[in-house]
């Protein structure tokens, strides 16, 4: 019950912040209407999250991944430019990467897909709960970027 209330409050806060940023003039009436509708939206968001059975997964390796992400983004854009400008050198392709136990595949796959270097195509179900997860990604080049090394811990399966 407390977790439900906390989650609904979190959604409500996010929606109220969005509302305050996006409206043109901030007044009491706008805030009141926004608060009411944000409450409805928060209830709906929590119901949707539970219906989709979504959870962020483990947060292991979040720090190294977040640190590596901006540099990988810039480096991968350079790799994309090199691949576009030199038709002869195109490697890449599908490969499997293994996330260690405790790293949620949802946010790890999203971070990886947010760089031009790779995008996630499939996630295998866990062989055992809390075990390592395998993802199939399509990569731009054959060498793993900094983000992929940060997520997988360096080794390839």
């Amino acid at each position, binding site marked *: 019950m407390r977790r439900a209330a906390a989650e609904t409050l979190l959604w409500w806060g996010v929606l109220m912040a*969005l509302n*305050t*940023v*996006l409206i043109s003039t*901030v007044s009491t009436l706008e805030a009141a209407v926004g608060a009411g509708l944000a409450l409805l939206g928060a209830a709906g968001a929590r119901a949707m999250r539970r219906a989709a059975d979504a959870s962020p997964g483990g947060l292991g390796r979040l720090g190294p991944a977040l640190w590596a992400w901006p540099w990988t*983004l*810039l480096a*991968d*854009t350079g790799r*994309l*430019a090199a*691949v*576009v400008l030199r*038709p002869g050198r*195109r490697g*890449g*392709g*599908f490969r499997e990467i293994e996330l260690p136990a405790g790293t949620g595949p949802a946010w790890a*796959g*999203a971070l990886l*897909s*947010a*760089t*031009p*270097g*790779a*995008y*996630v*195509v*499939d996630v295998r179900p866990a062989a055992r709960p809390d075990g390592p997860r395998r993802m199939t990604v*399509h990569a*731009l080049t054959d060498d793993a970027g900094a983000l992929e090394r940060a997520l997988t811990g360096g080794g390839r399966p």
Partner: protein
Amino acid sequence: MTPRHLAALVLLVAGVAVLVLTALALVVLPAPYLRLHALSCATSLGAPLVVLALAVETGPGRAAAKLLVIGALLAAGGTVTTMAIGRATVLLEEAQPKESGH
């Protein structure tokens, strides 16, 4: 030209250059899998650079926050759709063993 205006112009040129690069990559790179990398490049780097240029030009305040929210929305939406299109392409390409050549 104030430094802020100059910084906004530099960011704008960088962002537009990245976006034009991604459009070029869409045509140059071979279908069907390699060119999908251009989609995530456009929404993760190109659009946020332009949004950052606009936010710098607007100056601190609620208007800049609104622009940054729109940029974050574009980045998140682009990441999700890149994964969705990638998976749909894999499923459809596997289902057709004989392709027409594209």
